[in-house]
């Protein structure tokens, strides 16, 4: 089934001092408080993080409830904001693939694909034998997922003690953490181009289409970076 040695090794990766788990936990604390303010029960809040486990998607869901959009509009709004998970999963799964491992592990563990777990794996996968990487990944995913659920519960119960300014302070943590992480990985011209251009084009396309800006901006920036990279190789 799952190799416990590598599973627990993955779990332990989340407790490193500069692990994304800190930003993840504090961000879901804010989500827990937000869900309570929207009128969710504690069971519904846990159920939401348990099943969705994606911060921007949860924010879109919350906004949609406030505005009162149809379920079809909600589906497309969440799908568009979380569509980044598609290239993230494609860029992650080949690193974990091994012929001795069953397919269900990949389809089940893809639920754990989120920025924090993705970054932890990308920083650590080379140290793990390829055969056991998927078990290591399931460990990372389980740890970050449980942190998100636990923080949602904590945020839900502390909502009454968090004022508006504190919630704003918590809300900036996630984008700041990932901004710094992105700057930290900018070590090749291709990654520099994809990250800088993505950061510029995403908001620029917002003026044309707020729903599609992330996808269009990301697609163009990533493609330009790829072309530059291939030219460098050749």
């Amino acid at each position, binding site marked *: 089934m799952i190799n416990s040695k590598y599973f627990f090794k993955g779990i332990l990766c989340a407790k490193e001092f500069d692990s994304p788990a800190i930003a993840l936990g504090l961000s879901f604390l804010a989500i827990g408080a937000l869900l309570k303010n929207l009128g969710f029960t504690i069971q519904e809040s846990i159920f939401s993080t348990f099943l969705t486990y994606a911060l921007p998607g949860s924010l879109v869901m919350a906004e949609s409830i406030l505005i009162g959009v149809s379920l079809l509009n909600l*589906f497309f709004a969440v799908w568009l904001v979380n569509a980044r998970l598609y290239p993230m999963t*494609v860029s992650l799964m080949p690193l974990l693939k091994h012929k001795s491992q069953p397919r269900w592990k990949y389809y089940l563990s893809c639920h754990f694909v989120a920025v924090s777990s993705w970054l932890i794996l990308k920083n650590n996968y080379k140290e793990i034998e390829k055969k056991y990487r998927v078990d290591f990944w399931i460990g990372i995913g389980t740890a970050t997922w449980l942190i998100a659920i636990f923080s949602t519960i904590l945020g839900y119960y502390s909502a009454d003690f968090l004022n508006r300014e504190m919630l704003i302070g918590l809300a900036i943590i996630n984008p700041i953490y990932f901004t710094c992480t992105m700057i930290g990985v900018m070590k090749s011209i291709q990654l520099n181009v994809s990250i800088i251009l993505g950061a510029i084009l995403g908001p620029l396309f917002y003026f044309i289409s707020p729903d599609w800006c*992330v996808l269009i901006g990301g697609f163009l920036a990533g493609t330009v970076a790829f072309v530059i990279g291939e030219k460098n190789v050749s």
Partner: protein
Amino acid sequence: MSANIVLIIVITSLATYISRFLGAFTSEIIDENTKIYRWFNYLAYSTLAALISRMIIFPAGALSDSNYLSRFIVVLLAIIIFKLTRNNLVYPTLFSAIIMFLLSSFTI
């Protein structure tokens, strides 16, 4: 649990899982040493960068109550702290929350 909220959560989770599932499905035919893998790798970083800058410039949720200048100052200070602490991720993250809290308390 209210049936309406449960339905909203199920729709949200389905809309989220579909991208993850399609990613796992597509990756069955992609090897890590191929050109298409490299392309997807750059797409992952660029869409992530696009999303993060969108979250800062056009925020949703609590962050939308803050002003542009506060967010710009916090991002700038966080990057400076990140570089001063030799790429440590914890200090800029925690300081950004404190600075944002203070700026929101005094400027809005």
